[in-house]
């Protein structure tokens, strides 16, 4: 852990990126099959990792199988680079893979994420690794995997549509705001992991490679670049993303996903970008060119 230690795969008792080579080969084969069947959950021999289930063991295994010495790794949790989960996973890969880390979405070649897709558009060749707690979108409807597997096999997704309809009947709108189910490549129903539905449209036709790892459930799935990802909806209740009346209190963005922050005991609150890199970049740009910022906001 000490700074400046050069870790390589031959000296510290751990293989490069923690996993042994046979495990990596197994995960790599699963990843290739996952890309070949977009949205289909490939079972894999998930290993026990040195952190608890629910903290990103699936994402870490996927990242470990993909990462190399030339990569730049970015890790975010709820959009932020400086939260506990993100910091510990970043430090983990610095320790076991001696890999370069960054907070910049532009620079990163691999982005491991929990619950957000970065606001900055991704590019070809970038790999986005999602940490997935529950990969089965039908799990709350049908807990038996023997059944959900058949539902996926025969594309029997009516039950999910009924669940959304029950929302419409009860509340007048589809109430699901995160982990919003989507049909990938016109065939497989997929859980996008607990990202806000605000991020669902970013998955469609994204130039980057999107990989999903569920450690406890031992499933890997993927969305290849330039693939259709259609969020379920109805003709008279089309899919909509969240909107906010205000803008980010720090950078003024009106297009990003905003978190509500309580600032005192009297109910004062403010809205700030959940994507810290996006917000910091905008603040830095505004600081260096104040006139442009004012002009940009009027536009």
């Amino acid at each position, binding site marked *: 852990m000490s700074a400046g230690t050069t870790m390589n795969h031959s000296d510290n008792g751990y293989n490069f990126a923690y996993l042994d080579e046979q495990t990596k080969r197994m995960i790599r084969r*699963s990843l290739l099959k996952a890309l*070949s069947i977009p949205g289909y959950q490939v079972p894999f021999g998930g290993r026990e990792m040195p952190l608890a289930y629910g903290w990103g063991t699936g994402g870490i295994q996927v990242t470990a199988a993909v990462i*190399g010495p030339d990569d730049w790794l970015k890790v975010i949790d709820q959009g932020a680079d400086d939260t506990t989960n993100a910091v510990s996973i970043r430090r983990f890969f610095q320790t076991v893979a001696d890999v370069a880390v960054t907070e910049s979405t532009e620079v990163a070649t691999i982005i491991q994420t929990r619950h957000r897709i970065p606001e900055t558009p991704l590019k070809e060749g970038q790999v986005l690794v999602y940490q997935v707690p529950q990969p089965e979108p039908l799990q709350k409807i049908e807990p038996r995997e023997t059944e959900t597997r058949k539902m996926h096999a025969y594309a029997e997704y009516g039950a999910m549509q009924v669940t959304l309809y029950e929302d419409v009947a009860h509340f007048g709108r589809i109430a699901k705001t995160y982990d919003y189910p989507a049909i990938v490549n016109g065939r497989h129903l997929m859980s996008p992991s607990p990202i806000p539905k605000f991020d669902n449209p970013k998955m469609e036709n994204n130039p980057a490679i999107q990989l999903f790892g569920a450690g406890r459930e031992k499933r890997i799935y993927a969305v*290849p670049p330039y693939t259709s990802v259609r969020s379920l909806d109805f003709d008279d209740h089309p899919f909509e993303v969240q909107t906010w009346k205000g803008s980010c209190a720090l950078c003024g963005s009106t297009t990003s996903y905003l978190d509500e922050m309580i600032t005192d005991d009297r109910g004062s609150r403010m809205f700030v970008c959940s994507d810290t890199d996006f917000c910091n970049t905008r603040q830095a740009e505004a600081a260096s060119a104040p006139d442009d910022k004012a002009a940009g906001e009027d536009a």
Partner: protein
Amino acid sequence: MTVISSAPSMRPVSSGGTSLKPGFADPVFDAQGVFRASLVATAYPGRIVPLDRTFAAPRPFSPATAALCLTLLDFETPAWLDRQAQSGEAASWLRFHCGLPLIDETATARFAIVTDPLNLPRLHEFASGEIEYPDRSTTLVIQVQSFTDGPDTTWTGPGIKESAGVAIDGLPSWFWSDWDLNSELYPRGVDVIFTCGNALMGLPRTIKVEA
């Protein structure tokens, strides 16, 4: 103990007086680099993805075929070799470096390594997976003459922005009509990674090809 008794039988496989060719010089980073290329090839079908390192491949394998085998195959992946691949030093090289079972039936192979595509078995003879487990299908590694000198085909599907023009040389005449039948099985079906020299090109089952 059994390891010792099996070791001598490994040694004499050096056919034709030459010793077995080595595997990866750096098993960790070479495998990672080649996997990353195969990930990109599968994610962006129809693109020529060159490997950034070269290998001394056993006959009749090209460097890319050999590298892909070392990266993806091991004791968990029964593999089928076509007759030409069996004839050279490749079979014993694979057994030694990957420790994999080489099998005769195409229908149970997880991987099929093809160096003579004109004598390729029909695609339906390979494992196309089960309807509940479509990932349990054969991945074909097909070594071809050229990615650019063959008949023109147009590829569309996930991973391709609009369409990709590909001209793979040396495939049997029935290949693309068999590929259409393969897409009809979706989500079942075989996947292909073409190799040529030191480059890869992915053809996952989702891709529609107009020949």
